[in-house]
Each structure stands twice: as C-alpha cells, then as structure tokens.
C-alpha cells in the first residue's frame, strides 16, 4: 500500500481511513504511526515536538541520534532519527546530547604532533579495542581504527578515517574507556587541516587576486545595473556546454580568469 495521504494539518496529521500504521515504542510507550516515515517524522506524527534534538533534518548536523532495539533482538541499533525509517516494534530513545570531556587548546599555538594530542586527551590510552564505538556510529565511521591511528601518531590517517563524523556522541556513550572519541577526532582534523594537509595553491592565488581588487570593478558594475540589465546579462551569459570533455572548453571572454 502506498504511503497514507495526509488529509488535514494541524497539531497532528489525520490519516485517511484504512491507512496502514505500524506500532513503535518511544521511551516505552506505544504509538501507531504511518509506515515509511522516518523516526523523526513518526515521532512528530505521534505528537512529540522537537525543541532540541532536531537540526538539519538532512543527516549531517548530528543532533538527532537515536538508539533502538527491535523486538526479539538483543542487539542495540543506532541511527539518525531524520534518516532512519521506522520498523514495526522498534523501541526508541533519543539521545540528543551525551556528556564528553573536551580539552581546551589554542589551535594557533599547538603543534600537529601525536604528543600534543596524547597529552590533551590521555584517556586515549584507556581504549581496550572493544569496538563498541564503531558499532554505535550511525555514520559507519571506523571509530576504533581512527582511535588506533591517533595512538599510533598517524594524525593524517585519523583525520581521513573520521571525516564523516557528525559529532553526535554515540561513540562516547558506549565507550568502556570513557573516551570522548568525537572531540579527539575533531582536534585531529583541525590539526590536519591547519598544519598537515597541503595548501591549495590555486585558492591562495585567487584570494590574492580578490584582495588586490581585481574583481572590484566588475562587482561595482553589477551593482549599478538595473533589474532589466541584470536579467539580460544573465540570460545571455556564456555557459559551458553540458558533458564537454574536461579542459577542452574556454569562454570567449577570459578577462575574469
């Protein structure tokens, strides 16, 4: 059956007669919600209103981690409420925040060295490699592997392995060594981005051009145009053809390059 059509709006959606619903349990209480919804929308359907614990609704901000079990299954599951579709007999709890120690540092003065990270976060060495962090990650980051890379002093590898982290904190919630994995990884990515990763030469060149005023005249010219002139300019703009092989097309006017 297709997803139920919403027939009225208000505090709570009203389903058409015969729409298919499934039972879910939020903090132990049963709610019948339309199938195919995400956990977040299902909870809103059930009457919950998110003041915290909902952000981008696009699977990036890390505000809506949810821990759940399925009926008859001993395993814990983790997902983002805005990305995970409800299943019958899910037992859900929202964990929008989990306390984790965050070290204080001045990124301008610290060095990109393993010793620096190790002394800011000595609890790294409490890791017992149980891998609960990896199992808890809704983004499927190999958390244990990046923790190991940090202990081994390979900050570049750790920065890359942790790139998909959205700072939701589920790793820390499950850690028997009480590590704040996601804060440590953020420090490492900051060090990597600032000190280790090669600089983009073309970006520096372009910033230099902008700062030297190369584009000022062009911008002030645009600012002086009226609506009709802007529209004409936009419609008649030179456009790179679709699917043109890389590096083969050049605009006729190269004065901006």
């Amino acid at each position, binding site marked *: 059956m297709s997803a139920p059509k919403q027939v009225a709006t208000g505090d709570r959606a009203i389903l058409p007669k015969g729409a298919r619903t499934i039972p879910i349990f939020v903090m132990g209480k049963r709610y019948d919600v339309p199938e195919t919804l995400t956990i977040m929308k299902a909870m809103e359907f059930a009457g919950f209103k998110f003041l915290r614990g909902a952000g981008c609704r696009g699977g990036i901000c890390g505000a809506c981690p949810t821990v759940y079990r399925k009926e008859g299954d001993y395993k814990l599951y983790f997902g983002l409420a805005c990305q995970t579709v409800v299943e019958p007999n899910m037992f859900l709890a929202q964990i929008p925040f989990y306390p984790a120690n965050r070290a204080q540092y001045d990124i301008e003065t610290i060095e990109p060295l*393993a010793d620096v990270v190790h002394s800011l976060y000595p609890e790294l060495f409490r890791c*017992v*490699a149980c891998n609960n962090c*990896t*199992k808890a990650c809704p983004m499927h980051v190999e958390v244990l592997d990046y923790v190991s890379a940090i202990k081994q*002093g*390979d900050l570049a590898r750790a920065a890359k392995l942790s790139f998909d982290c959205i700072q939701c904190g589920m790793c820390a919630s499950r850690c028997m060594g009480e590590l704040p994995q996601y804060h440590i990884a953020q420090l490492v990515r900051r060090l990597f981005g600032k000190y280790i990763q090669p600089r983009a030469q073309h970006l520096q060149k372009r910033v230099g051009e902008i700062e030297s005023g190369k584009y000022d005249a062009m911008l002030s010219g645009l600012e002086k145009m009226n609506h009709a002139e802007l529209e004409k300019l936009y419609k008649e703009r030179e456009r790179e053809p679709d699917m043109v092989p890389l590096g083969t097309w050049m605009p006729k006017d190269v004065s901006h390059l």
Partner: protein
Amino acid sequence: MKVSYYPGCTLKTKAKHLEDSALASLAALGVDVRELPRWNCCGAVHSLADDDLIHHVAPVRDLVRAMDEGSDRLVTLCSMCYNSLARANLLMRNDEVKRKTINDFMTEENDYHGEVEVEHLITFLRDTLGWDNLRAKLKAPLTGMKIASYYGCTLVRPKDVAIEPASGRVINEFVEALGARAVDFGASTVCCGSYQVLAHPDSVTEVVGRIIQSATDAGADALILSCPLCEYNLVKNQEELLQKQKIARRLPVFYFSQLLAMALGLGPESYRPDMNDAASVEFLKSKNFPVGSTAIRP
C-alpha cells in the same frame, strides 16, 4: 607461508628507531613482511584476572586481522607486544570457554581459534634466514664489540611464551652472528621496573643501576634490548645513577635491530641514532659509525 608484521603503537612514535632499523634491515635481507593494514593496541599488559576477558579483546582482534589477511605468522619487534599477543593466542588455543566468550563478544569479527603463530623477529630471523645466511650478508660486522643482551621479562616469561625456552640465549646467538662478542651478565633477565616508573620511580632507578652495573662489570661496551619501556627505564635513569655514583659509567643502549642495520652496512637514516641518547651516539662515533644529525635526547 605468509607473514604479517605487527608494529605496536610505541614503534610509530617514541621508538621509531626500533621500527625503522628493523624494516630497513629486512628489506636489505630480502625478507618480505607486510604491516597489517588494520591493527590496534596489543593490550600492552596481559591481564591475569580470571574474569577480566575484556582486556584480551585488543590482542585477539589483532590476531583476527592477521588471520583475515591470510597470514600464518605475525611478527613483532616489541617485547611487550610479543608477550601480550602470544599470551592471548595461547588463551584462544587452550581455553575453550574463554575462547567462546571472546568470539561471541566480537560478533563483528571472524571467530578465532589460534590460527596465527606469533613470533618475535629474532627467532623469525633465526628460523627463516638462519644465522649463517645472516652472517654472509653483513657488510660491516661488529667485530670487537662486546654486547650485553638484555632480555628483560617479556621475552622469556612466562615460560610457555618464551622466545627461546630451551637455551634462553637466542639474542646472544644473534649478537654473535653480527660478529660481536656476546657478554653474559647476571642481570640479563632482571625486570627493568616496567610501569613502576610511574608509581615507584626510585625503585626503578635502583634496579636499573643493578642491571647497568652488572652489564658493565661483565665487560660490555653496550647493551641491546627490544622493548621500548625497558629502553626508556634503562636510558632515563643512567645520568642520575652516574651522579650518585651507583654506576661507574654510562652504558650505551640500542635496540637489537639498530645493531643489525649497522652490521648490514646501512646508513644512519636506517638505524636512527638521532633517537638515541648522547652516550649511545658517542659510542657509535668512537666505533666510526656515521651518526647523521646530532642526538636530541639528553
């Protein structure tokens, strides 16, 4: 036979001279060992508590990684990693109940039953290459050097993981294969004090004094070892011991693999004297071994 190499965390940071010298030597000897693409801490200390299985998970996970690579053997350089991995391996082979509990806990990994053999590089070299073959490949034999082999604890205790249970002299054989003279000394298997350096630093200084003086009395020019924690304790305490006249002179301390690289005629970028202490660097200079950049450790 496929061999994986397990470095251990410290070899990637404080003990780069242990790893760099060993890998450069193996390359020069044409021995193919590959670092595990994924590995975690070895567990560092083997837990003896009967109900503390969680501390065996780290080494067992490394053994699973080696098994998944299709390796029969996992070679280590660090004594402590060797000990921790080898003991976890024995546990997984011999204790059916604990094996099942650990395998059941690690649902995300393949079950492990002790398929991989854990080996230290010294015995690996002896058994796969042989001392005679090693001798034949030396370009700068360490003739005239008198070397004390410090085994410490973790290579020889407990007996069922000892690298050479029969003779307990395998590092001495290694030293002689390099052309040096192996010096026997009473304290070669006395504990360096290990982690007690944190809680009881004075006791560690005292025992280090006994070890260093024992090797010096036996006529050693230098001492070799394969454990970063032993290295730390044995190097760090010498200046204080010398000032208190508990030892007659500073004794140079090297990793066994540094001597190997030197004897193979490799350069200082391989045996990394820049990571040794000043006394050890002076010793190398006196023996006309290039030391590259100056020592950075006091």
